[in-house]
């Protein structure tokens, strides 16, 4: 008998069915990955195994160790939660209680399920922390969540989940919020613990690289349906269902042309100092500076893409904002940024405005980068109002429509019906196209792309990258592509710059840096991207 046997699971919220007829089984000690894009119902399915969604209407059957989870009473399911089935959430900062010491949080779970005394539970909590590789667990148990790093917090979450030796661990995107270098460690940790205790792991993810490396079996979900399942090797190598084929083939393909020659943008020994409040009493009067970018130099040719890779906190976004002259008013930028013949520093207001036209930007999250209360025409046309005030409304609309056509955002071949709509009426990929259109309508020479695809699903990501590559070759655009994703850099960049702790670790052409990395850090990045 299987440890977990899900048969014909159906989940509905009100009148809307989000999961329809999902069946799978999980044996003890097995690693199953539930894969799908956002909205596919993978998280809802997994949370329903513990009946964690109070508003959901569940049908079908979920047998855990021969007992039906869906029909058992509330006391029984509370016994099951945490004890037999544990969950590791995606975002460790929000899943941990910020005002409780981590030792106490783990001990609480132990007291609850094993009825141990406080001191004994505390000892077990320390042991659990030691097991997940937290150094100095006795001291660390006294820490609050904010005092730990992201990777440590995720380890604490895992320690908490494993404290009661569950037989099934549900890991919901356990590494998505972490940097690449930590992902590998967390996965290895999970695998070690699985071998030790013989528990089964249900991994929920959208990341196929993760699945390839981790799971024994994989189940692919699309819009509430389970379209394919099988062992990882065969599904990844020979996908049967068209959706799985699309998913497996969605690894970014390189379609960019060769770069031009010349120089459109250069930075010489660029440093960015963030202004932060000082410590103690003096902080009331003095502000201290934190160096976010230190002495970075770069050159960008027409039609060229410079990929800037780094983890969160490496200074890559600060660099992008400095290139755009969008740093905070109290932050200091040292060094020279030249855009064509001009520099930001020496430009007066009118000249800065002219520079804004040349350097444009596309942000990571298309939902927050579009004002929710303005129509598409207003959003895309805004730049024209500023930079070409002579245009009348009709001419401006023509330009906006042209920009939307350029980014291939049409409805049944028509652009006009889209103009009066609001951003919420579009999907994530369409919104990113609108953001690109807003940048393009000004006919810029340089576009700074700040993680342009990391908020999008893999299949959409591929479309946006192809669009960016086509626009580059058609319009001769130069890109500064800021990302943490090596696959994206591989698909887009001509030259690469690797940043770590505000410094440039390695820079050069794509083949040199990613083909034959010299620094340890780059080697690790390349290895972990698989």
């Amino acid at each position: 008998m299987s440890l977990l046997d899900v048969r014909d699971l159906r989940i509905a919220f009100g009148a809307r069915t989000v999961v329809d007829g999902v069946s799978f089984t999980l044996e003890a000690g097995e690693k199953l990955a539930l894969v799908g894009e956002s909205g596919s119902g993978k998280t809802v399915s997994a949370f329903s195994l513990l009946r964690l969604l109070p508003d959901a209407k569940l049908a079908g059957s979920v047998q855990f160790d021969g007992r039906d989870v869906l029909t058992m009473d509330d006391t029984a399911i509370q016994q099951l939660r945490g004890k037999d089935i544990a969950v590791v959430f995606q975002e460790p900062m929000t899943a941990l209680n910020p005002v409780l010491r981590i030792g106490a949080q783990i001990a609480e779970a132990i007291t609850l399920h094993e009825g141990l005394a406080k001191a004994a539970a505390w000892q077990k909590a320390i042991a659990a922390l030691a097991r997940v590789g937290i150094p100095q667990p006795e001291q660390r148990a006294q820490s609050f969540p904010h005092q730990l790093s992201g990777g440590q917090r995720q380890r604490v979450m895992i320690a908490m989940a494993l404290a009661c030796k569950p037989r099934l661990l549900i890991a919901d995107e356990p590494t998505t919020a972490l940097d690449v270098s930590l992902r590998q460690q967390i996965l290895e940790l999970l695998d070690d613990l699985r071998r030790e205790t013989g528990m089964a792991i249900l991994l929920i993810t959208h990341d196929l690289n993760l699945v390839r490396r981790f799971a024994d079996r994989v189940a692919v979900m699309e819009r509430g349906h389970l379209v394919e399942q099988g062992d990882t090797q065969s599904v990844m190598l020979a996908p049967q269902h068209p959706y799985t084929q699309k998913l497996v083939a969605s690894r970014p393909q390189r379609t960019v042309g060769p770069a031009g020659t010349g120089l459109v943008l250069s930075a010489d020994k660029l440093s960015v100092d963030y202004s932060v409040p000082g410590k103690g009493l003096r902080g009331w009067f003095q502000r201290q500076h934190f160096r976010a970018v230190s002495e970075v130099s770069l050159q960008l040719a027409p039609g060229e893409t410079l990929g800037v890779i780094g983890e969160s906190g490496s200074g890559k976004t600060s660099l992008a904002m400095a290139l755009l002259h969008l740093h905070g008013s109290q932050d200091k930028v040292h060094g020279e940024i030249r855009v064509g013949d001009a520099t930001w520093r020496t430009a007066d207001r009118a000249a800065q405005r002219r520079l804004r036209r040349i350097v444009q930007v596309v942000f990571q999250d298309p939902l927050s980068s579009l004002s929710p209360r303005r129509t598409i025409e207003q959003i895309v046309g805004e730049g024209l109002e500023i930079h070409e005030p002579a245009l009348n409304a009709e001419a401006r609309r023509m330009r906006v429509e042209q920009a939307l056509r350029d980014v291939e955002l049409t409805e049944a071949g028509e652009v006009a019906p889209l103009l009066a709509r609001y951003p919420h009426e579009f999907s994530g990929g369409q919104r990113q196209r609108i953001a690109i259109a807003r940048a393009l309508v000004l006919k810029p020479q340089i576009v700074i792309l700040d993680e342009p695809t990391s908020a999008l699903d893999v299949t959409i990501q591929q479309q946006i990258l192809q669009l960016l590559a086509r626009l580059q070759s058609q319009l001769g655009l130069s890109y500064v592509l800021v990302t943490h994703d090596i696959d994206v850099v591989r698909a887009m960049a001509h030259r690469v710059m690797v940043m770590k702790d505000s410094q440039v670790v390695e820079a050069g052409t794509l083949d040199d840096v990613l083909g034959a990395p010299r620094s340890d850090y780059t080697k690790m990045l390349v290895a972990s991207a698989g």
Partner: protein
Amino acid sequence: MNDASLVSAAASASAAPAPAATSPLRASPGRRAWQRFRRNRLALVCLMLLGALVFISLFAELLSNDKPIVVRHNGHYYFPIVQTLPETTFGGDFETPTDYLDPFIREQLAQGDNFAIFPLNPYHHSTINYFSKEPNPAAPSADNWLGTDDRGRDLLARLIYGFRVSIFFAIVVATLCTLLGVLYGAIQGFFAGWTDIAMERFGEIWGSMPQLYMLIIFSALFARSLGLLIVLLVAFDWLLISAYVRAEFLRNRALDYVRAARALGQSRRRIMFRHILPNSLTPVITLVPFMMVGTISALTSLDFLGLGVPPDTPSLGELLSQGKANLDAWWISLSTFVVLVGTLLLLVLVGDALRDALDPRKQLEGAP
């Protein structure tokens, strides 16, 4: 990775039992909020009722007045509601303005072809019924439907005019507070840093002044008037609005759409008013009905204490204090209580529904 938002969207969708009748997708955010508001039947009825009452109260002079709307006397037509006519016009002895409730004048107007069309309730809020059959305060009767107060003034007329004064006082105070608070909070939140700190400290000092003492001091210094009350209430109540707007501006200024506007070269003023302001007004709009409730309550309690409007102004608070002074005249306290509670209840129910309709967590509903 977006499944969490899907879950909450689905959860909120199921929380509201009735799904959208019309597609909420093809509409501006404001329109979608209105559609959500409309789904709350009770609030919609309350809003319409409140709107009707406010509208009707605008024409209080036609509803409750001691001057007839039209008079025909000896072949001449008069419009006393807009004309001041001496008593001699209708055969009286004096050059003073006519008292149309005087039995002698009534008699004159009933002779032959003469007629007078009185408003529904033939008393103005200042009319003293000298011809009442009972001593004041008089109980409800055919003459005075809700009775009279202790000075012989018709209670219904006092209530109609008192309601009008209260509601328009609240509208004026809420509008001024909103304007001042939005401007102050917007400057604070947008410029942040030292500007914010300095303005925040000023706001704290200002807010720590004892409002009631100030009112007592000022009502001693100046003649009591509605204008003075408006100034004094606005002077302290805007702080609440500015705190909300400041927080919204601080949040919104860091969002990417503001950075995108800066990257386009948009001017600071335009960014403030065109991009951040419309996205920061939600909590303000939610607050307005509750602010009006607070203002009406404040006006009523000040009047009750005798610190409020000038003595001859019709006021609900003054009626309540009369009710307290004349406990045996139950009709004074009861009818004032009903009007006051009714008004406040309507406002609260509307405000409550507005808050639900503008709840950001429900914005996700029906999103793609």
